[in-house]
């Protein structure tokens, strides 16, 4: 017998979900092999020293959604996971004013009150509402979506518990949840607040990673998705992994290795081998074949089903569903190595406002205009940005006295007019720096090195189809029992013994791990759908 026969399961892709699935399978006694194309694990959850001495969380950059049960069950703190708090959100404004929400409730209230006394009251009540909504939706994050059209006992049981859960919500909250599910985040927030920068900064979490604007229906739900993250039991807490997001993947990889998982880097999978409707192994680039009775893909649904397997092995309607699955990137990333801290005109000097998120979202119109550019194939001339300065939170990210700055930028459409090339990438980078410099004029001179990542780069280097950071948009038509396709939301696929465990499965994207864990638990149950 060769080495390949030794494996019970092969996981394609060493992203945080693939690693999670591998760790859970190994925890149940399975012998698991993880195959990672790149030289390091993590997928989109990586820290790389792109410029000597400066560590960049190249793509994903903050942590909140990571399921607490994974942290607990895989003992991630023992494997090096440390999540440091990101306490504030600072929104500098073009008129020289600013709006900052702090970790402290009273301080935040005072600040919002300065902009609108009514909004200060509304903010508390809104927070209360979102807390209840997150509580309402939270169980869904940890459940395998039941198929509402199925009459199987398992699905019925799932639907019943879900029905009971929503009935227990109470009338008012149920109707509110319905509104959240259907409205645009801008409309939803307009019902509550009058301060434009506050609404804009809050609605920004409704557009992150989507090819939608704040006035597009469905974005209110995405906003809720970002409220559901919890750290130590506190909802809507965002944190920064010490060492960058790569540390999250590294801690899961460390747990997996300890549990006996084999991880092979620099190993790209060419194809899944299907025999008689069953997955039996993978063929690697270069011709090597590895066999195992279970194959799991941590790649996105389109890459998984349209590239890794022969379409002929899949039912045509399923192939159609996957082709229709929206996975169009809308965001880019600009990572900067800085010689000094940015100095914001509206709140000069070093200060606590630099230790949290810095949001370039002065108004809802600003965000919608940024979207307008993207709708017609251009990157936003004045983009929305979510900026953090990791070196202020974890000094190890940059040489002493120097800094790294992570800018999540939206919009950068995957389908750029004329296509992306080096020149366009740099032009996009310039638009980002120019925009930020309007608020922090010293930025340009502070830059030592910059890394610009476009949606095209995300696809080419990180394998994200369309450069979509969530493995497919978090819009209602492809969430829960529709993720990634109707009837196949239970991590199984039309090919027996072939499973999906990435962010394209329920509950979706972000550094969450939910798909990876739930996939593993389903695999361990075994059997067909």
């Amino acid at each position, binding site marked *: 017998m060769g080495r390949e026969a030794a494996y019970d399961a092969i996981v394609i892709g060493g992203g945080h979900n693939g690693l999670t699935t591998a760790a859970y399978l190994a925890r149940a006694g399975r012998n698991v092999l993880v195959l990672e194309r790149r030289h390091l694990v993590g997928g989109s959850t990586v820290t790389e020293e792109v410029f000597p001495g400066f560590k960049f969380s190249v793509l994903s950059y903050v942590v909140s959604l990571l399921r607490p049960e994974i942290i607990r069950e895989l003992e991630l703190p023992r494997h090096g996971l440390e999540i440091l708090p990101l306490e504030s959100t600072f929104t500098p404004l073009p008129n020289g004013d600013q709006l900052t929400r702090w970790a402290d409730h*009273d*301080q935040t*209230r*005072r600040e919002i009150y300065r902009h609108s*006394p*009514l909004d*200060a*009251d*509304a903010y*508390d*009540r809104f927070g*209360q509402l979102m*807390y*209840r909504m997150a*509580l309402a939706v939270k169980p869904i994050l940890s459940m395998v979506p039941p198929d509402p059209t199925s009459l199987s006992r398992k699905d019925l049981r799932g639907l019943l518990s879900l029905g009971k859960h929503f009935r227990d919500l*109470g009338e008012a909250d149920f109707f509110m949840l319905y509104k959240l599910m259907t409205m645009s985040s801008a409309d939803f927030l307009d019902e509550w607040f009058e301060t434009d920068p506050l609404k804009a900064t809050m609605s920004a979490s409704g557009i992150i990673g989507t090819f939608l604007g704040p006035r597009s229906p469905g974005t209110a739900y995405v906003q809720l998705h970002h409220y559901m993250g919890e750290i130590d039991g506190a909802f809507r807490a965002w944190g920064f992994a010490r060492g960058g997001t790569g540390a999250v993947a590294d801690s899961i990889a460390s747990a997996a290795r300890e549990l006996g998982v084999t991880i092979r880097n620099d190993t790209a999978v060419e194809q899944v081998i299907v025999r008689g409707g069953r997955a039996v192994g993978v063929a690697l680039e270069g011709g090597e074949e590895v066999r195992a009775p279970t194959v799991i893909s941590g790649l996105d649904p389109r890459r998984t089903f349209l590239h890794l397997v022969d379409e002929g092995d899949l039912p045509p309607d399923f192939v159609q569903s996957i082709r229709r699955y929206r996975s169009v990137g809308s965001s880019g990333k600009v990572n900067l190595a800085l010689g000094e801290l940015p100095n914001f005109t509206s709140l000069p000097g070093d200060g606590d406002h630099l230790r949290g998120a810095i949001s370039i979202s002065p108004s809802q119109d600003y965000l919608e205009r940024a979207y307008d550019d993207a709708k017609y194939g251009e990157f936003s001339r004045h983009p929305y940005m979510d900026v953090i300065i990791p070196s202020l939170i974890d000094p190890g990210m940059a040489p002493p006295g120097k800094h790294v700055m992570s800018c999540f930028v939206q919009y950068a459409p995957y389908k750029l007019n004329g296509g992306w090339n080096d020149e366009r990438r740099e032009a996009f980078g310039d638009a980002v720096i120019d925009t930020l410099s309007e608020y922090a004029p010293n930025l340009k001179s502070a830059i030592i090195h910059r890394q610009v990542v476009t949606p095209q780069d995300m696809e080419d280097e990180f394998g994200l189809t369309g450069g979509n950071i969530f493995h497919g948009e978090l819009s209602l038509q492809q969430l829960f029992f529709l993720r990634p396709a109707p009837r196949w939301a239970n991590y199984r696929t039309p090919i027996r013994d072939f499973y999906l465990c990435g962010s394209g499965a329920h509950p979706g994207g972000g550094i969450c791990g939910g798909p990876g864990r739930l996939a593993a638990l389903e695999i361990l149950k075994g059997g067909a759908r």
Partner: protein
Amino acid sequence: MPGTPLHERTSALCRASNWRRWGGFLAAGSYDLYHDREYWAIRNAAGLIDVSPLYKYLIRGPDAVRFLDRLVTRNVRKCAVGRVMYTPWCDGDGKVIDDGTLARLDEGVFRLTSADPSLLWFHDNAAGMDVSFEDVSERTAALALQGPNARKILQALTSADMDGLRFFGVMDVDLAGIPVSVSRTGYTGDLGYEVWVDAAQAIPLWDALMESGRSYGIVPTGLMALDMARIEAGLVLVTVDYVPTHQALLESQKSTPLELGLAWTVDLDKEHFVGRDALARQAETGPEWRLRGLEIDWVSLEQAYGSAGLPPMVPSSAWRTSVPVYGGRGQVGYATSGCWSPLLKKYIALAHLEGTAGVLGTSLEMEVTVEHQRLRAAATVVETPFFDPPRKRG
């Protein structure tokens, strides 16, 4: 965390550096290392308490009465100019949002205090009414002067007749030449006043009161002493003795005024106010829960401690944790705050009690922790206030 307009004075006096957070401001928990003297000042001389962190709103306009009558449970039409009403206000289900004092300063001018910010709730309930709201919380400082000597201290500073200011009355006077609004109100159940002053004049007022009070034993007093006094007075504290509806996560955490022992504040004869229908229904059936006074039996407490070989110990300050209360059939409620009353020489508590457990005179048990063991001490359901001296109204 900012201080109140009096911070310059209070911080210089606060030897204990015992600061608490109140409504987004620093407030002295106690000035001295030991708060006993402050407590006794309230009952024996006069305590001067900075209550500036209270939220304060001026409500004005031709429809002010109509608006307030809709908002609060009491009948505002019965509130004459120069009078003050203590009142809760409720949501549509009759659950208490907050409580405070409503002072009628003029025909169409009221000042309402609240523990939580209330501007949005006012706006929500003022549709179509000619009424305006002004948040004067930061502009207005407030000093409570509480204790048997309070009247004398004020009288020494003004030619106005302080005897003329009856219990729950309010009037404008000059104190040491500083124009203020004085109400015969407080949170101690004692003879006492609250003085409302422009923030810019707060420090001169403090100095004048301290100077005048020197002959009468005035003591700057913090929240720890105030907490004991208000428990003795049987006065509920929002977020401690009840969860305001806007902060509640569960239906069961909310309370109606009837459940809080505030039935006397609910005027069901009013045609309409927010929560009226729900409260009318509850008034018919009677509330299932009731906030009551508990008096913990000394002999039983002595036995509980005795079982561990210790003499009985009583809390040195008021506590604010939920403590289980038991009846014959298991847990029948929970106490939300309590203290040893040095004045009454009784261990007292405020407790939410279910059904018949809330009947006056009922014998119950309250949990006491003795040497890490959870034991029980006998307790009796009693009328509040625990302490109600004639001078309060006299």
